[in-house]
C-alpha cells in the first residue's frame, strides 16, 4: 500500500518466553528456536508499521519492539 511506513522489529531474548505469537502472526519474520524456545528475527525484520504494532501488542512477554523506522515504501 502506498505510504505505508516500514519499520524494523527486534526480539529481546531475555524477555522472550517462546510463546510463538510472533511466529503465528508473521511467520516470514519470526522463528522460535526449537531448543532454546527463544524467538528471533529472520531476514531483514521489516514490517509495515500496523502489522508490527499488532505483533508488539500480542507478544505475551513484551519482548518484541520496533527499533527504527525504515524508508517509506513507494
Amino acid at each position, binding site marked *: 500500500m502506498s505510504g505505508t511506513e516500514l519499520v524494523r522489529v527486534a526480539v529481546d531474548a531475555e524477555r522472550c518466553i517462546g510463546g510463538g505469537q510472533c511466529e503465528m502472526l508473521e511467520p516470514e519474520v519470526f522463528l522460535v528456536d*526449537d531448543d532454546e524456545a527463544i524467538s528471533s528475527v529472520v531476514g531483514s525484520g521489516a514490517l509495515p508499521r500496523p502489522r508490527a504494532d499488532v505483533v508488539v501488542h500480542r507478544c*505475551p512477554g513484551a519482548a518484541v519492539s520496533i527499533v527504527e523506522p525504515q524508508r517509506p515504501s513507494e
Partner: protein
Amino acid sequence: MSPSAASTPTLAPEIADPRLYLDGIPHERFAEIRAMPGLAWHPYGDNGFWAVTRHADVRAVSRNPKVFSSAIGHTNLWDLEADALEARRSLIDTDAPDHTRLRRMVAGAFTPKNIRRWEDAVREITVELLDEFLAEGGGDWVEMVAAPLPIRVILSMLGVPVADGGYLVELSNYLVEGTSDTQSLPPDAFGNTTELRLLPFNSPASHALFEYGDEMRSKRRAEPCDDLVTHLVKAEAEGGRISRHEYRHLFHLLVFAGNETTRTAISHGAMALAAHPDQWQRVVDDPDLVEPATEEIIRWATPVLHMRRTAAADCELAGTPIAAGDKVVMWYASANRDEAAYTDPFRFDVGRGDNEHFAFGGGGPHLCLGAFLARLEVSVLLQEMAARRMLLEQRGEPVRVASNFVHGVLSVDMAPGWGP
C-alpha cells in the same frame, strides 16, 4: 485486610459459588460487574478478591506480572499455606525468571512450526473417533470424541503408551473434581500417603499422576526416545536445568492441561455448532472459515474461567486502589463477552474477525503453552466434520461441572446427521 482504601468499594454479585456454574456461566452477573465503576470487590472466605471482568483490565493485569504476581499466595481463589504452596508449585504459579526458564524447557515443542508436524497424527486420531461416533449413531460426545482426541495427542507427544490413555483420563477427571466441592476419592486412593493439602487439586489422583510420571522418567532414562519426557529427563540430567520437583509438576500439568481444556473447547464447540446450524453451514461451504471458526469456538468455550494474581505492591487499576497482598482475579469468562471488546459478543459468529480472545490467558507471559495444539485439534476436527458434511443434533441438556474454575462438561448426548 482490604478493601484497603478508606472509601467503601462496590460489591460484586456472587460469582464464586461453584453451584452457579451448573447452569452455565452466570453471564448476566458478569455483565453487571463490567458495568460497575472501577473494580468491584467480591467477598470470599474470610477475605475477598477484586473481580477483574473487563477485557482491557484483564489484559492490564495479565501483562504486568511484576505487580500482579503468580508466585504469591496461589493462582486459585483460596490461599495456600506456605508449605502447601511450595509443594504444589508448578509453571502456573511462578514468575520470571523461574517461569521463563521452566517454560523454555518445553515451549520449543509447542511452537506453531513444531505443532504443525503433528497434523497428520491429529487427523488420524480424529478420523478414527468420528468414524466410530458415526458408526454408533452418536452418543456421549464427551466420552466418544472430546475427551479421547486431546488426551491421545498429548500422550503421543509425551511418549505415553496408548493403552494407558484411559487411566490418565480417569485421573484427570478426578483432578477436575478437586476444583469443585465434591471429591469422590478417599484420601488414600491410589496408595496415596501424602496429606491432600500438599497435592495439586487436593486430590490423591495427583499422587497417582506423579507416580506415573516417575515411572515414565525411569523408563526414558534407561531407554531414551524421541518424546517430551525424554527431553525433560535429559534437561534434568544435564546439570540440573530442571529439578525433580519441577519435572513431576510439568508432567502433571501437561497431562491435565493437555486433556481437560481442549476437551472442554470441543464439547462447547459441538454444542455451539448444534445450536447454530447456519454458522456450521458457513464452515462447510467455505474451508477458509475453519480458522476463524476455531478461534470463535475457543472464545465461546473459554475452558478456563479465571486465574488469580496477587498484588506484589500497592497499585491502581481502573481507578481503584489495590493494596499489596490483595487478590486480583481475571475473569476470562467475562472478558470474552465484553461489549467493549467485541461486536455483539453473545453472537456465535464463525466469521468473526480480529478475535483477540482471552481463552488462552489474558495476553501476558502465562499464555497457554498448548494454544497452537488446541487450535490444531479443533481445526482438524472441523475440517473432518465438514468433509463428511456432518451435522450435530444435541439430545438433551449437558451435564456440567460444578466449578468456578473450569467450564467443564461431563457429558452431552449428540446425534449425527448429514447436510445437503
